[in-house]
């Protein structure tokens, strides 16, 4: 074999091994058979891989809630966590495992959109267990692909992006550059943002699609510097996001153009830990932030800090609320039968969330909730986020809006 071929063979083998490795995972707490004195809840989360920080937050939230609610209507709760490592195929395998071998009563999952979509199709086809979508923010899960068996406790892309578009146009300025990760969710967010930004009199100067895994954003930053917009709207989840924020700061753009962040990563503890001062002055749209002042949240933050020694993030609250919704639904239905649970959910359930009261909208299977705009501040060497505007009770339209898609 000649040397170059070996080299290329190396690359190929590497990539294939890497792909295979991505499908790996672990099984926790396997125990066969269903017990009528137990409620079995199976969660398929991304606990390793690129989205581990999301999966971990969700798991923290779920465990916190069930620590205080170990028993529902006299039945002991058994939690089973499975790792999908950010891979939809792995999530489907875990789904089989949980429904066939473990006989779980309710499924929770969907750390990222593609996994939520994959699980949704399976759940909708089999109709054997209801699913709580813990994050997966795709609009289509509320519109064209809405399933009676799949309920979301987090938020939809539309809720974030339409609020961000309105805020940017009304409160910041009429010209903006959109920087978005070049994948499904990025296009969805950009579509909703742009439509609402233009609706409120704004003008999109440029849309930059950054490939997922972009390590150096400097070319894009120099383009922004040429345009000199009022604001820059970014939607870059994952590890690329903090890197963008850091480079935005390094290249001196932070003080010139208002950064508006749309994937709720700017105030994440991991972001602040990684980029520190670069988040100061940045604004972010979110459905939750730990500094939010209400009785439920104050108590939640205190409990969370006590158990984990850190601040809760959006994902922790999404996990906590998913757990809360499951418990409320089971209590109201008085059973864990799938049809009973679905019936109860279709009547509409309200829960007291740390993010403020939320109501699960039976038309879109998505919560009606407040949206907050917050801004990074630095005082005495600590970075915190301050509320600058609240948009109350944002409800998704019942059908897909006829926007031009980007």
């Amino acid at each position, binding site marked *: *074999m*000649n*040397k*170059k071929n*070996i*080299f290329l*063979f*190396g*690359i190929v*083998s*590497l990539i294939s*091994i*890497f792909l295979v*490795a991505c499908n790996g995972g672990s099984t926790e707490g396997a125990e066969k058979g269903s017990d009528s004195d137990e409620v079995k809840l199976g969660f398929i989360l991304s606990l*390793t*891989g*690129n989205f*581990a*920080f999301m999966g971990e937050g969700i798991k923290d939230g779920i465990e916190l809630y069930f620590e205080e609610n170990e028993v529902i209507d006299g039945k002991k709760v058994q939690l089973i966590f499975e790792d999908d490592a950010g891979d939809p195929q792995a999530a489907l395998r875990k789904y089989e495992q949980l429904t066939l071998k473990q006989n779980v009563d309710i499924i929770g999952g969907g750390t990222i959109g593609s996994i939520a979509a994959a699980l949704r199709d399976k759940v909708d086809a089999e109709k054997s267990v209801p699913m709580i979508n813990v994050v997966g923010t795709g609009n289509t899960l509320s519109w064209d692909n809405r399933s009676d068996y799949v309920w979301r406790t987090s938020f939809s892309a539309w809720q974030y992006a339409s609020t961000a578009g309105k805020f940017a146009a009304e409160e910041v300025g009429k010209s903006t550059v959109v920087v978005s990760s070049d994948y499904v969710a990025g296009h969805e967010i950009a579509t909703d943002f742009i439509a609402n930004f233009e609706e409120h009199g704004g003008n999109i100067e440029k849309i*930059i*699609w950054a*490939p997922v*895994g*972009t*390590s*150096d954003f*400097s*070319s*894009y930053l*120099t*383009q922004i*510097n*040429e345009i000199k917009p009022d604001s820059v709207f970014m939607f870059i989840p*994952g*590890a690329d*996001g*903090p*890197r963008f924020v*850091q*480079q935005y700061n*390094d*290249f*001196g753009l932070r003080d010139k153009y208002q950064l508006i962040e749309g994937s709720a990563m700017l105030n994440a503890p*991991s*972001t602040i*830990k*990684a*980029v*520190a001062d670069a988040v100061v002055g940045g604004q972010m749209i979110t459905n939750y932030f730990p500094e939010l002042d209400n009785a439920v949240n104050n108590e939640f933050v205190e409990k969370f800090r006590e158990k984990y020694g850190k601040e809760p993030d959006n994902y922790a609250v999404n996990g906590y609320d998913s757990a809360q919704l499951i418990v409320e639904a089971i209590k109201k239905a008085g059973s864990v039968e799938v049809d009973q649970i679905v019936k109860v959910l279709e009547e509409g359930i309200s829960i007291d969330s740390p993010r403020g009261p939320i109501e699960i909208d039976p038309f879109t299977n998505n919560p009606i909730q407040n949206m907050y705009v917050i801004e990074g501040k630095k005082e005495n060497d600590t970075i915190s986020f301050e509320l600058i505007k609240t948009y109350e009770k944002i409800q998704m339209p019942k059908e897909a809006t006829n926007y031009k898609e980007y």
Partner: protein
Amino acid sequence: MDFFIINTLSGLTYGMLLFLMASGLSIVFGLMRVINLAHGSFYLLGSYIAYAFVHNGFNFWLALILATVIVMVLGLIIERLLISRIHGNETAQILLTVGLIFVIGDITLWIWGGNFLSIPVPDLLSATIQVGESQFPAYRLFVILMGVFFAALLWFFENKTHVGMIVRAGVDDMEMVGALGFNIKVIFSAVFIFGAGLAALGGVLGGPILGMYPLMEFEILINALIIVLIGGLGSWKGAFIGAVLIGIIDAFGKIYIPSVSMLIIFGIMVIVLVIKPSGLFGEVEA
């Protein structure tokens, strides 16, 4: 104009990081005929270890030196314990070094977790330099200078020193060098840990720019392999030219042809390999 300057500088910054990584890979291959796919893991380890030091209150420069030295020691252990056993067996080398990628990757994941981390820019270089109406971070300029410095060092080492002469001879015919009474094993080890050190240095320098996160070793490795293929195996000069080329193309490709910028890099690789199969500066026959 400043648009052009800043993008060139950005491209050079990225290119220099890739150069530090790719030159070690290339030299090790040239001399030892070892395809060390785990070279990217040295980059990863360098940045994570430096992060650990900085996070525990060490200053950046000390962390830079300590991380590089630690990775060199690890490189020595890996070379002596594992790689030296399978000289000449190319399939085993690939399997072993790919295995090492996953072992090292999982160890870093275990210790530092899956979140994006970043090393703060040292205070000394935290300023920005005004270029026309735009700004360019001083730290990036420093990275470019470091890249150029190491290229010069490699040139000096190769052409002006006794050891460099032995290494050059070794690239052509290792057995002959051995027959002349030089200790091949020591030369191998020395070159290997030197390469590991360069990769680690690249990792530390890249920490404040690219940060670190699981699987970043793959991104870096793929780019480094392309650079080595373009520049030619066994040649640090080729790695230098290849790295600068990739850096610049990456920077401008993102602006003018964003959807196919990665494709161009592969396109160039294909063209170079068709026209000159041994790469631009290839010293090893394919």
